[in-house]
C-alpha cells in the first residue's frame, strides 16, 4: 500500500519533537513526587526510633525535644470525629440528591453550591469555625472538637460529590424491583441502594478522610496545638500537621529533624488510606 504520499520530513520532525515534549512534560510532572518521596525518606527515616513514637514533645529547645506520640493520637482523634460528622451528613445529602431530589431545581441548587464549596480554601473554613465557635466561646476557647468541625466542613462536599457518583451507578432496575415488591422508598434506600454501593461509598469516605488528615490551616485556628497527650476533645490538642508547622519554623536541628519524621509519618498514614481506598474501589468494580 505505498500509494499514499510520504509524510514530509518537516511534519515528521514536528511530530517527533512535540511527542517528545509531551513525554518530557510527564517526566517533569513526576520529578516533584520523586523529590518529595526521596527527601522525606532521607530526612525522615533517621528521626524514627522507639522513643520517637512513644514520647510526647517536651518543649525542650536544647537536647532531645521529645517524640510525636501526642501528635499521632491527636490527628487520629480529630480526624475520626470529623469523619463521624461528615460521612453520615455527606452520604445523606447525596442520597437526597440521587433518590429524591434528582433533577429538581432545589437539588440542582444544592449540587451547585456543593461544587462551589469544594473550591473554598480550607483556611476559610478555619476562620469560620474560629469566628463562630472559638470567639463565640461555645464551650470554652480552642478545642479539638472545633478542629473536627472545621475539617468536616471541608470533607462534607467531598463525601457528597463522591457518594453521588457511586449512588448513580446503582442500576435503576434494582430499585424498581424492590419497589415492585412493595418495599417503601426508605427501605429501598437502606436495604438495596446503600448495600449495593457500599464499597464505593467507603472509597469516597476514605479519600475525604485522607484529605482532611493532611490539613493544617483549619486546625491552626481551632485546635491551636499542645504538647501533652490527651484524649479529651474539649481541650487543645497536638496534631501532626500542627507539630510539623511549628517545628519547621524553629532554628534547631533536633526540631527540624522531628518535623521531617512527623511529615514522613503523616504521609505514610495518608498513603495507607489512599491504598485502602483504591482497593475498595477495585473491589466495587469487580463485583
Amino acid at each position: 500500500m505505498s500509494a499514499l504520499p510520504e509524510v514530509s520530513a518537516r511534519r515528521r520532525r514536528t511530530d517527533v519533537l512535540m511527542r517528545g515534549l509531551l513525554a518530557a512534560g510527564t517526566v517533569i510532572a513526576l520529578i516533584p513526587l520523586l523529590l518529595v518521596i526521596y527527601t522525606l525518606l532521607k530526612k525522615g527515616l533517621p528521626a524514627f526510633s522507639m522513643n520517637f513514637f512513644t514520647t510526647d514533645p517536651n518543649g525542650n529547645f536544647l537536647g532531645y525535644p521529645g517524640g510525636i506520640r501526642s501528635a499521632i493520637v491527636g490527628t487520629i482523634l480529630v480526624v475520626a470525629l470529623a469523619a463521624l460528622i461528615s460521612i453520615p451528613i455527606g452520604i445523606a445529602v447525596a442520597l437526597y440528591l440521587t433518590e429524591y431530589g434528582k433533577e429538581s431545581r432545589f437539588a440542582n441548587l444544592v449540587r451547585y453550591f456543593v461544587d462551589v464549596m469544594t473550591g473554598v480554601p480550607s483556611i476559610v473554613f478555619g476562620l469560620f469555625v474560629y469566628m463562630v465557635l472559638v470567639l463565640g466561646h461555645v464551650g470554652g476557647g480552642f478545642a479539638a472538637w472545633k478542629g473536627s468541625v472545621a475539617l468536616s466542613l471541608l470533607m462534607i462536599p467531598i463525601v457528597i460529590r463522591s457518594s453521588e457518583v457511586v449512588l448513580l451507578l446503582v442500576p435503576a432496575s434494582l430499585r424498581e424491583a424492590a419497589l415492585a415488591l412493595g418495599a417503601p422508598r426508605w427501605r429501598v434506600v437502606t436495604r438495596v441502594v446503600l448495600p449495593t454501593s457500599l464499597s464505593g461509598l467507603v472509597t469516597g469516605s476514605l479519600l475525604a478522610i485522607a484529605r482532611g488528615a493532611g490539613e493544617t490551616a483549619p486546625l491552626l485556628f481551632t485546635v491551636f496545638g499542645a504538647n501533652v497527650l490527651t484524649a479529651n476533645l474539649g481541650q487543645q490538642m497536638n496534631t501532626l500537621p500542627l507539630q510539623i508547622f511549628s517545628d519547621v519554623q524553629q532554628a534547631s536541628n533536633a526540631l527540624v529533624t522531628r518535623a521531617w519524621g512527623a511529615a514522613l509519618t503523616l504521609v505514610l498514614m495518608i498513603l495507607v488510606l489512599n491504598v485502602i481506598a483504591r482497593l475498595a474501589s477495585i473491589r466495587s468494580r469487580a463485583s
Partner: protein
Amino acid sequence: MTASGGRSGLERSRLGRLPDRVFEIGLRSLAAAVLLLIAYFFARLIGQSSAAFGHIGVLNFIFRNNWDVAQLQPGGACTTANDLHCTFGAWALVLGTLISSAIALVIGVPVAVATALYLTELCPRRARQPLSILVDLLAAVPSVVYGLVGLLVLIPQLSGFQQSLANTFSFLPFVGGQVAGPSYFIAGLVLAIMILPIVSAISREVISTVPSEHKEAALALGATRWEMIRIAVLPYARPGITGGAMLGLGRAIGETIAVVLVIGASTKLGQSIFQQGYTLAAAPANEFAEAAATPVHRSALFAAGLILFVLTLAVNIVARRFVVRGTRGRFGATVVFTPELEAEGQ
C-alpha cells in the same frame, strides 16, 4: 391488608407512609442546612470584617498598600498621630496572591496539559494507569509537607538558580535585582506542583471525552499523531482544559500553609518576583495569634479571609461553567474520585 374506603388493596395506610415522608423530609432539610450554612457563614464573615472595612472603606482596604501591623498598640490604639498609618491596606496581600498564583499557572498548566495529553493519547496502554496514579498521588501530599520541602530543600537548592534567572531576564519588569531566599517565585513553583494533579486530572477527563471519530478522521486524512492532537483533540477539549486551569487557580489562590512557609511573610510589597511577599491566605495564618489582642487587626484578617472567599468563589463559578461545557455533564468527581467511575456513570 384489606381494601377499605377509597384505598385499593395495594395502597399503604397513612401511618405506613409516614416513615417514608419523615425520611425524605429529613434528607431534604439536611441538604437545605448545607445551603443555609454557606449563607450564614458569608453573613458572619461580613459582620466580622466590618470593623476593618469601616476604618478606611472597602476599596481603600483592598487597594491601599500599607499593612501596618507594627503601628498598632495592644488594644488597637495608634502609636503615631497620623491616623492613616494605623490602617490595614491589603494591596500587598492581594497582589502577592495574584502574582504567586499567576506564576503557578504559567509553570503548572503547560506541564499538566502535556502530561494529560501524553497519558491519554501517546502513552503505551499498560503504563497509562500506573502513571496516572503517580501523578494523582501528588494531590495526596499534605500542604504542610510541600511547605517543609519548599522551605528546607527548594529555597536553599534553588538560590543560585533564582539569581541566574533574575540576571538573565533582568530586562523584564519586576524580575531583576536583589534575590531573596523565600520569594514569590518559590511560592509560585510550590503552588505549580500543588495544582498540577487537579489540572492534569480534569484535562485527562476532558480529553478522554473527545469522540474517537474526530481523532480517527484526522488520522485517516493523513495527520501525524501530533497533528491529530492539534486538529482534533485540543480544539474540542479547550473549554474543559481552561476550566481545569481555573480550578487550579482557585486552589493556588487559597493555599495557605505551604505559601506561609516559602513566601517569607513580608508585609512590604516585594520589588521583584524574586523577593519576599505575602498573600491573602498567608496573613490570617501567620498573624492571628498576635491579632487576638487588637480587634481592628483581627477584623482586618477576617476581611482578608472574606476577599479570599469571594475571589475563590468567583473563580470557581467561572471555572465550573467552562468544565461543565467541556465535559457536557457534571464535574467535580475527578477532583476527589477516580475518573473511570465518572466515565462509567455517563
